[in-house]
């Protein structure tokens, strides 16, 4: 399967602030990829770099196999995006005219297609109203329509259901599922974990600019036999735990060590034999929200 979107060791520093720290992602064609993290984790900054809006301090981005930087943005013509807390719209133009000006930048987009996306986002009746008069949810729908009008192969969405009512959220979820089934690759940043759980194939969790977990949702939720322990000396504990028979992986992460392949009793007993008493033992949870809270709080 080809890689649609790739980042390698992406970093962004604003002076002393490390907004994004060593983010490496591979998103395959046709995949729905969830990008999660608390407020201020660096999600929007990462998306800004992907879209050529923000200069990376270090690292590389490739879309459709071609490098993307603020000076090289040609691959973005095949990308549709909805970013920022508020969608970017021209408030004095109507909904239809806002979509039209995006359509004008992409050859082959017809008037019928504009009607189609207005219907997709349920804005047909409001097509002639000025975008500045829309509610937050309506602006979000319009932003989505503007991202979809040119049939992009990759969609990058930052909180696409922001401001929508539950019915609207469900419609967007169904729309994204339908697009993915038709082969569109979707990169979705969202706080709504139950939504991500429902539609995403894989997720990455970002905290303080760094990825703290990445993988298929089902794998992350099952946790396999992953056990997470909090210790005062994670490096020493990791060295000891690698000696355990049957261990599959040992990953120190801050003050925590994650062990896969052994149950919690075996891990704790082995550490205790060597004089290391964990202050916390975490066993896998079975919903994304619990996993998210666990991952983002332990790294804080």
């Amino acid at each position: 399967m080809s890689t649609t979107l790739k980042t390698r060791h992406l970093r962004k520093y604003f002076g002393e602030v490390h907004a994004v720290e060593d983010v490496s992602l591979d998103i395959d064609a046709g995949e729905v990829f969830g990008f999660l993290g608390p407020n201020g984790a660096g999600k929007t900054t990462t998306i800004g770099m992907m879209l050529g809006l923000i200069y990376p301090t270090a690292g590389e981005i490739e879309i459709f196999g071609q490098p993307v930087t603020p000076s090289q943005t040609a691959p973005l013509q095949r990308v549709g995006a909805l970013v920022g807390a508020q969608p970017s719209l021209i408030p004095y133009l109507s909904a239809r005219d806002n979509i039209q000006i995006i359509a004008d930048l992409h050859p082959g987009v017809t008037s019928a297609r504009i009607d189609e996306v207005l219907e997709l986002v349920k804005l047909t009746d409001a097509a002639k109203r000025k975008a500045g008069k829309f509610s937050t949810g309506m602006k979000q729908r319009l932003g989505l329509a503007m991202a979809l009008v040119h049939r992009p192969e990759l969609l990058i969405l930052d909180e696409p259901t922001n401001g929508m009512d539950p019915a609207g959220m469900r419609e967007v979820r169904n729309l994204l599922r339908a697009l993915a089934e038709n082969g569109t690759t979707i990169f979705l940043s969202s706080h709504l974990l139950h939504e991500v759980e429902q539609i995403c194939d894989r997720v990455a969790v970002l905290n303080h600019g760094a990825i703290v977990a990445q993988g298929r949702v089902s794998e992350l939720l099952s946790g396999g036999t992953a056990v997470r322990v909090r210790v005062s000396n994670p490096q020493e504990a990791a060295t000891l735990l690698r000696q355990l028979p049957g261990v599959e992986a040992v990953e120190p992460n801050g003050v925590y060590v994650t062990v896969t392949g052994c149950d919690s009793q075996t891990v704790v007993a082995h550490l205790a034999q060597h004089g290391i008493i964990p202050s916390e033992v975490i066993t896998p949870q079975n919903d994304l929200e619990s996993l998210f809270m666990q991952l983002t709080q332990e790294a804080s």
Partner: protein
Amino acid sequence: MFAPMVKTEFKKLARRKLLWIEMIVLGGLIVMFFGSLFALHESGLLTEDTSEVSDVIAWPDGLITALGFASGQGLGGLLVVILVSVVVAQEYDWGTIGLWLHQGISRRTVLAAKFAVLLVAAVLLTLAPLVIGGLFSAAITPSIVGELDLSQANFGELVLSVLRTAYSLVPYIALTFLFAVLTRSMAFSIGVGVGYALVIEGVVSQLMILVGGLPEKIAMWLPGLMAGSLSELNQQIVLSANGEEREFIVEYLDPNLAAVGIAVYTVIFLGLAFWRFQKQDISG
């Protein structure tokens, strides 16, 4: 992508009320000015010494007067500062700068398209007062001088004068472009631009001229006074039988030097704006 982006910018500008309001303001001021002078003339209050004032609005001098309103030395500079601030800086406020960039349009193309459209706006801001002033002048001239002779105007020179006057606005466009990109704020960009036009060119330059010597020579190189130099050429619209030319109180730069000076200002300000925009992190 340049042509589609220019088309987009035209659509956006045409649907804004601001450009049309500015043209109406210019037209309205000309109507007031011409109307007031005409009323004075008709009232019989003008003496022999002051009767020449009414010639300023009679055909074809009325065309030169109308163009003067639109030039960089007149109200045109201020109006262009406001228009450019709105067209460029407001897109930062709305987040739409990012919208164009993540369509895969290069940063150079985004700014170049805006600049191209603003050049057309400068021509429109010159044409509007010219058309209104010209019509008014043609209508009132029979009352002032007895008859209207349209052939007294050199229409070829008129076209060149429109282009010259629009050209005199270009350094204001470039300077405000730079302010808008640097500040990313419409309010700040308007404030700095209008402050420059009113304080530096409106007050400081006049004081420098009064002082004379080196300060006066420096003042001649400001965009507003270079615009004045180009305006001198506009009097060639008038085909005067006795070869009389309108006198200017100020001794301006040679118009060719002024044209080069305007081009240099434009290249510097626009170059800095492009360079800075290329380096910016854009959020939203």
